[in-house]
């Protein structure tokens, strides 16, 4: 699903965000990426999304080489990724349902299916009753759930969640992590970055990665 070989990412100001990273993610994997702020967690997700490109090394996501000049291919790839952003990136002035449907509008789905997918996703995150509420009237936890609903409504095969618990209290954070892990199946993988190491746990299929100053370390838990 994801194949990273010897990837480094250096910014023009000389900062090294990632340093010679190797990583494989298989279908059905649950991956937690932990580490302090500035350790390279978000940079890693940006590479998977095609927001940044590696300075050296190679990276393939779902068979697509992530490199400059692949704009259209990367755009197509993004259609089958479900991103959950740290700042939610919900569109204000629109309802919860509008926001959830936004991620599917350009997938050429019939209108009925579009609505049904959105409804199912909202049921899954427990916000069906808020479908017609404006997103600016939601709590942080609810906003995060809407962001997750938007990501999963289009049935992605890779969910990338960047600090989904960052703005939440402990109870809400646990619920969100539980919700995200519930989307894993034999086809779908979930990668979550978080600095809240005390909240995460996993089974045999769960991989734990620790990032530190751009370096990647595998961790064993349990």
């Amino acid at each position, binding site marked *: 699903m994801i194949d990273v070989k010897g990837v480094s990412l250096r910014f023009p100001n000389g900062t090294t965000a990632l340093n010679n990273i190797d990583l494989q993610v298989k279908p059905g994997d649950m991956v937690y990426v932990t580490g302090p702020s500035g350790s390279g967690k978000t940079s890693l997700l940006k590479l998977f*999304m095609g*927001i940044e490109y590696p300075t050296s090394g190679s990276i393939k996501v779902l068979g697509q080489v992530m490199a400059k000049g692949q704009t259209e291919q990367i*755009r*197509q*790839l*993004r*259609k089958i*990724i479900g*991103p959950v*952003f740290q700042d939610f*990136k919900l*569109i204000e*002035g*629109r309802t919860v349902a509008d926001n959830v449907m*936004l*991620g599917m*509008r*350009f997938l*050429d*789905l*019939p*209108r009925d299916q579009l609505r049904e997918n959105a409804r199912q996703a909202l049921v899954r995150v427990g916000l069906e009753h808020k479908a017609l509420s404006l997103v600016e009237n939601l709590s942080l936890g609810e906003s995060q759930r809407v962001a997750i609903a*938007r990501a999963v409504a289009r049935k992605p095969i890779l969910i990338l969640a960047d600090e989904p618990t960052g703005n939440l209290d402990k109870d809400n954070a646990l619920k969100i992590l539980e919700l995200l892990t519930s989307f894993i199946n034999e086809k779908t993988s979930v990668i979550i970055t978080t600095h809240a190491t005390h909240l995460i746990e996993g089974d045999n299929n769960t991989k734990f990665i620790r990032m530190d100053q751009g370096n990647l370390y595998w961790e064993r838990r349990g």
Partner: protein
Amino acid sequence: MKTILLNTGYFLKEVRMMIRLNLLSNCLTLISTGLIFFILSMIISGWWVSSHVVNVVQGEAEINVYLDENTVKTNNEVTKMIDSIGHIEGVRAARVVDQDEAYHRMEEILGKEASVLNNFSENPFSSFVELKIDLEEIDPVLEKLNRLTGVEHIRDNREVLDRLRNISGVLKIVGFLVVIAVGISTLVIISHIIRLGISNNKEQINTLRLLGAPESFIAFPFLLEGLLLTLGGGLLAGALAAFSINYLYAQMAGPLPFIPLPPREALVSNLVIAVLVLSAVLGIIGSLLGLASTKSN
């Protein structure tokens, strides 16, 4: 195309949101494009009316020949004179208009004001020979008429025609210049409002890109916004122009009944169609320019 059709409702909703977010700017844009298109429509209608008048006057080109009564005295001499005039190349018809007919014609032209003719104790009009001619042949016809013995004075409408042609020509040039000015102004205004819209919706655009939305999907609401604003301006201009033309026609019908104006309904409908088509084209081009300039930045 399928994506666009499937999301028509969404795009219209987005446009409504964008207009509401910048309500004042959008209203001012609509009014200013409306006024610009109104100026354009008045210039175009002036151009069309003058061209129509020139064509009508040209189509009815006449020359009036006044005979020297000392030379051409008898009816026989008048008939001979008419016969020789009628044989000049370029003359389609020649007939005598006697004093009474000339008087009645003036009565018709003056209409309600014809009572002014009662101030004359005698019929003030002279008889003359009325010629229908081919306008292209006017110069050789005039030359040959001047050479005929018995011709006292020739009244042609060349001065009037030349003036009308000049006015029409000036309006044509002004029309072209105004079209160019209107085009540039509209493109600048619309591309600016689109850039403003893009700037205000930067976050949303970024999110859509991260979700994999095609550029055409992201751009379409902005294109629609530009199109709707200019079409709104075009409609406003069309309404103002229709009102103005109706008013001007009503004003001219009384004192200037002899000016052969084109039919009012046809003028108004053609003008409204032309302004709407132009506004739609300029709206689309302006929006595309706004989108392109933002992309290049």
